[in-house]
């Protein structure tokens, strides 16, 4: 198979899929031209700076959906600081690997998390460093893992 069982499981039974109307932060990365768009919604407990809930919407291939699903699982209930340190490699490993030309999907998932946090920070006037400058919807950049 092209994909591991884990990938197929997360693709076929994606966790946390859906929209969130009262999200504290929403991040969208990728673009339709590239063939992958991920939108991630987070709900944050302001006191503990913890991500209490997360949802995603994804337009994309099997691995784009699976990485979105896996990433939401990996940050749900976690402090924002921990979510921000989620690396695409960690997502790939958690999925038991991805085909080489699909690694960019995991990069997108990492960036979607960061974009959602950035949005939350922006809305709440919390300052942050340039590590939160995420994907500028530039195809070559997105794909250039």
């Amino acid at each position, binding site marked *: 198979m*092209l994909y591991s069982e884990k990938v*197929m499981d997360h*693709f*076929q039974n*994606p966790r946390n*899929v859906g*929209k969130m109307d009262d999200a504290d932060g929403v991040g*969208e990365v990728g673009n*339709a*031209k*590239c*063939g*992958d*768009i*991920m*939108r991630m919604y987070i709900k944050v407990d302001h006191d503990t700076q913890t991500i209490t809930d997360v949802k995603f*919407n*994804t*337009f*994309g*291939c*099997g691995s*784009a*959906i699976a990485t979105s699903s896996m990433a939401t699982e990996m940050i749900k209930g976690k402090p924002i600081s921990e979510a921000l340190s989620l690396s695409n490699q960690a997502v790939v490993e958690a999925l038991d690997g991805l085909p*080489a*030309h699909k690694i*960019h999907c995991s990069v997108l998932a990492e960036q979607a998390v960061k974009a959602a946090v950035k949005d939350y920070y922006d809305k709440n006037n919390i300052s942050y460093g340039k590590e939160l400058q995420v994907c500028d919807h530039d195809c070559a950049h997105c*794909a250039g893992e």
Partner: protein
Amino acid sequence: MRVYADNAATTAVSETSLAAMLPCFREYYGNPSSLHTVGQEAAERLSLARQTFARYLHCNPAEITFTSGGSEADNQALLSAAALGERKGKKHIISTQFEHHAILHTLNKLRKNGFEVTLLDIPKSGVITAQQVKDAIRPDTCLVTIMFANNEIGTIQPIPEIGKICREAGVPFHTDAVQAAGHLPIDVQAMDIGMLSLSAHKFHGPKGVGVLYVRKGSVPLVNVIEGGAQERGKRAGTENIPGIVGAAAAFKEACEHMAENAEKVSRLRDKLIAELTKIPHSILNGEQERRLPGNVNLCFEGIEGESLLLLLDQQGVEASSGSACTSGSLDPSHVLLALGLPHEVAHGSLRLSLCEYNTEEEIDHIIAVLPGIISYLREMSPVWDELENGQREHVI
């Protein structure tokens, strides 16, 4: 229920073809270059296979060269015509935007060697006009290569008209008939085809066998593979006798049942098209009329092809997408882009390619499962969300 609807990618070998191959593995296994009995038995079979292709293509057996597939035949046709052109100081080639990569990549190679290539635009119909070819021909044109039918959208090109124009202009004309052979009538003489490529695994023959037809006295072949004197010295390598024999048996079978197969398959195709285009914001790519009997190619707005294919496979439907997902490319199909579809729509394509083995029940199964999958994926899609919200405009 499992439904194989990816016959444009490859087909199952027919019983007839397999039966023809079997005795060649362990009984008539000789090398046709060998003088002895088992060698000459192989040579005999090779010669009969060549006659079969000649008969159904309406050419001479000596005009048939066996290759390892459609890609090799395409490569050899183009490199040979280019070599002749170069000798005559003619270095301009005409082709189309939506050829197979076996053609497009060979043209790129020729570009690096100083050839100029005109790629004709593809009208929305998916059918170019002979006039486009006529307008593009120049005094230094050494080759026109236009596919007989497109592998993604199945549209059939006006080959006899193009052939006539090329004959009148004295320009060699090659057609990549890999998708057409065995499915559409081909008469290289009546259609003024000077060179033609086909591949056996697209009509229930084995993989790894192709045919290159070249009209005698037109373009001298240059070798893609150098070595022994097989195929009149034009294609080295011990001949794949079982494969060639199986290819000929499959071609004969396909040509003899062409009309009935086409009738059956196009009826199934039309039913699929009628039902699936009822899905909102879906479109049939390329016109329905001049179309391979088995080809259905649709785009669905707001979703991406690969996830659609995976979910279809889960429901037992084996199909493909226009996009080269699995080949490591992130770009959507060059064919759909050539048709003028925007990138995001081209990503949402689905090709269902049928053959005479498909049944009405299978078609009904596809019709039953597809709409639900589309809705499910749209539900999950931020692009669909934007389309529905009016943040993004519907294109189809």
